[in-house]
Structure formats: structure tokens, C-alpha cells
């Protein structure tokens, strides 16, 4: 087995996370994921077309990359307190609603209005809910390593599912997100502190939603697998709410 493609997808996010999170702490985890995932995509596939070019010549995989980079930028700005409160939440949910529309722009051009409402509307709603849920979970979870580890496990699961169901590229892209988050968590070993903020819920929730949607609509991931995977973190996310209700 040639490890080169695997290393191209994994080494850049690992290096970016170890460097940025190692030096600057977990508030830089979104910036590290953005840098690592972008370099991985360029090495694995190609230099992506700019969003301005994608308007006239859409490409779902590249819209996926840019949308998630947008979510990572929002998270970084929120960590830097440039965006706060309702503005930050509103921007995150707006991007989540817009994400499936960008991702499926080209495919949806051939759909009827019914299908567009179902897949883009339903997908957008799912993305909004997942982002909201992750943000809320991270806001209420006990600060520590657990949420980061859960996010890494979740995105690793998505990556394995995508790679096993028809698309190495989508699997490797999602794997790059998981690798960067996992490496960020790994900095706990010498920093002795690691905690995600609610801002990170924006990109974790959106990556989870959009990678699964991309798997279904751009690759051959069965709906049943995608829905089961999308719902899986719901059980874990109920934990702090349950704790709050009983406590």
C-alpha cells in the first residue's frame, strides 16, 4: 500500500494543529483546521477554483471546501471576539443554511422544485440544527478534552464511511478535519489544557452535515447510512442537557 495519498491528507492538518494549537492554544484550532485542510486538498486534488469562479462554474467538492473554510473563519473571528453573541450565532446559522445550497448548486439545477425544497431545504435545516446543537453542547459541556475527542471520533467516523462508500477524496478531506482536531486535542499532553468553545460548534456541526450530504448527493453513500450517522451525535449531545435537567 502506498501511503503517499494518506500522508498528503493527514500530515498537513497534523502539522498545522501541532504548530498553531501547540503555540497559541485551542482558540487557534479552527485556524489550524482551515490551514491543514486547505493544504491537504491542494496536495490531494488541485488548487481550488475561487468562489467567484465557482458561481459561473459550480463544483460541489470545491464549494464544500470553501463553505467549511468560511465556517472555520467565523469560528476564528468568534474566538478573537471580533464576532460575538447573536451576530456570531446568526452568521453561523446563516452559513449552515446556505451550505447545502452551495454544495448542491450544480446537481440541484436538474432537480424539480419539489426535490430542491426537499433536499436543499431539508439539508439546510439539518445543517442549521447540527450547528446549533454542537454550539449549544460546547457552550454547556464541562471544559476539557472530551468534546474535542468526541468531535474527532465523529469526523473520523464520517471519513471512514465516505471512504468506504465510494469517495476516497471526500473521505480524505473529512479525515483532514478529524486529524487536525485530533492533533489539537493531542496538544493537551504538554499544554495540560484543551477546551473547545461554542464557536467550534459552527465548523464541527457544519462539517458533519455537509460531508454526509456530499456523500449522498455527490457520491454513493446510502441515505440510511447518512441519516444514522447524522443522528448518532444527537445521543451524545443529549448528555449535558440531561445532566442539566436532572441537576
Amino acid at each position: 500500500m502506498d501511503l503517499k495519498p494518506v500522508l498528503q491528507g493527514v500530515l498537513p492538518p497534523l502539522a498545522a494543529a501541532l504548530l498553531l494549537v501547540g503555540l497559541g492554544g485551542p482558540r487557534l484550532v479552527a485556524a489550524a483546521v482551515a490551514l491543514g485542510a486547505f493544504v491537504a486538498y491542494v496536495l490531494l486534488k488541485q488548487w481550488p477554483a475561487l468562489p467567484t469562479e465557482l458561481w459561473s462554474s459550480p463544483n460541489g467538492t470545491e464549494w464544500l471546501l470553501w463553505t467549511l473554510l468560511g465556517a472555520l473563519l467565523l469560528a476564528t473571528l468568534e474566538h478573537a471576539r471580533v464576532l460575538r453573541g447573536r451576530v456570531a450565532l446568526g452568521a453561523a446559522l446563516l452559513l449552515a443554511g446556505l451550505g447545502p445550497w452551495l454544495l448542491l448548486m450544480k446537481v440541484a439545477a436538474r432537480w424539480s422544485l419539489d426535490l430542491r425544497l426537499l433536499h436543499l431545504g431539508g439539508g439546510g435545516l439539518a445543517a442549521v440544527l447540527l450547528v446549533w446543537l454542537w454550539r449549544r453542547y460546547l457552550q454547556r459541556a464541562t471544559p476539557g478534552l472530551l468534546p474535542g475527542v468526541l468531535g474527532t471520533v465523529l469526523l473520523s467516523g464520517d471519513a471512514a464511511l465516505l471512504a468506504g462508500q465510494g469517495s476516497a477524496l471526500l473521505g480524505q478531506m473529512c479525515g483532514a478535519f478529524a486529524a487536525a482536531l485530533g492533533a489539537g486535542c493531542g496538544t493537551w499532553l504538554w499544554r495540560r489544557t484543551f477546551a473547545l468553545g461554542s464557536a467550534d460548534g459552527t465548523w464541527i456541526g457544519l462539517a458533519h452535515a455537509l460531508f454526509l450530504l456530499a456523500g449522498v448527493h455527490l457520491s454513493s453513500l446510502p441515505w440510511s447510512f447518512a441519516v444514522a450517522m447524522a443522528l448518532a451525535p444527537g445521543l451524545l449531545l443529549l448528555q449535558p442537557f440531561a445532566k442539566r435537567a436532572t441537576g
Partner: protein
Amino acid sequence: MKSLLALPFLFAALSLPTAPAAPVGDHDWQVDNGHSSVVFRVKHANVSNFYGVFKTISGSITLDPAAPEKGSVVLSIPVDSVDTRDGKRDDHLKGPDFFNSKENPNIEFHSTKIAKKGDALEVTGDLDLAGKKHPVTMTVTKTGEGDFYGPRVGFEAQFQIKRSDFGMNYGIAKNALGDTVDLMVGLELVKPAKK
């Protein structure tokens, strides 16, 4: 904030469909799919030549033998018709690692220049594959003509493309599949049905 939940449906309603158009003219021929073939060949693991086919091709060709430079060739191949004798491999080929058929359901060729080259024709055009357009030139030879339930004429072309030109670089790095793909296209053309 709850109104944000309605935004996905607004975005969905705003996306608009597009529609293609088809040419009509004298000296027109159309592809007889049942007697035409599209075969591709790519090196596997730097060891053997692997062959696959596209089972469907359609298109219209305008060709005046006296003035071939005024002609045109438009061909369309549905990606979903790819057949490599392995359903799982075909699904992989249709996915984002290769053709990305859900976004780019057809491989299209539109000629931009036709020139005589001895007994053959040199056809240059844009190959639209996996969402990327790239110019290709092929030498087209006439393989025969005759009458079989109407006039027919046959052509054949062989040419090479680099799949990396179309953003399909899966497996190139580890030599699992070669970058160069040979394409062999055999066309039997019939007169389009008059309306």
C-alpha cells in the same frame, strides 16, 4: 433567530434549472448508438492495459464531404453508462474521485475545427469531462459507407487524453492507474428521422 430556519427553503426555491438545445441542418447525421462503441484503455498498476466501455453515445454530425471544414461534431456520452464489469468499480468511477457524474452527468465533445488530413479528417474540439473543458485533437478515419435500412456511414477515431487535465488525479500518485487514457470511438451514423 427562529426565522433563520426558513432560510434553507428560501435558498432552495431560488436555484434555477437550465436547458440545452439541439442543432438541425443539411448533411446531417446522427449517431446510431446500437452500432457505435466507446472504449477506453488505461494502464493498471503500471502492469497491464485495462479496458472499459461507455455503453451509450449520442450526437449529431454535420459533414459535407466537399467542405468538411464547414462541418460540426457534437457528441454526448452519459457517464452512468460506464461499464468495467464490476458494479462497485463503476460506482467509484461515477463518484467525485473520477467523473463526478451527479454533477457532470455527460461527457460532451463539441468540435471547433475540422480539417482534411489526407484521406482522414483532423477534428479539433473541446472535451467537457468531469466539469472541466480541455481542447483535444483526433484523427478521424472513414471506415465505410453503405445502405442498411437507409444510408449509413462509419468513422473511427483514436486519441489520448491526460485525465489529470480534467482534475481526475485519483491513483496517479501511487501508479494504481495511469494518467494517460486511450479512447477508441467507433461511430455508425444514420440519417436523422425527418419530421
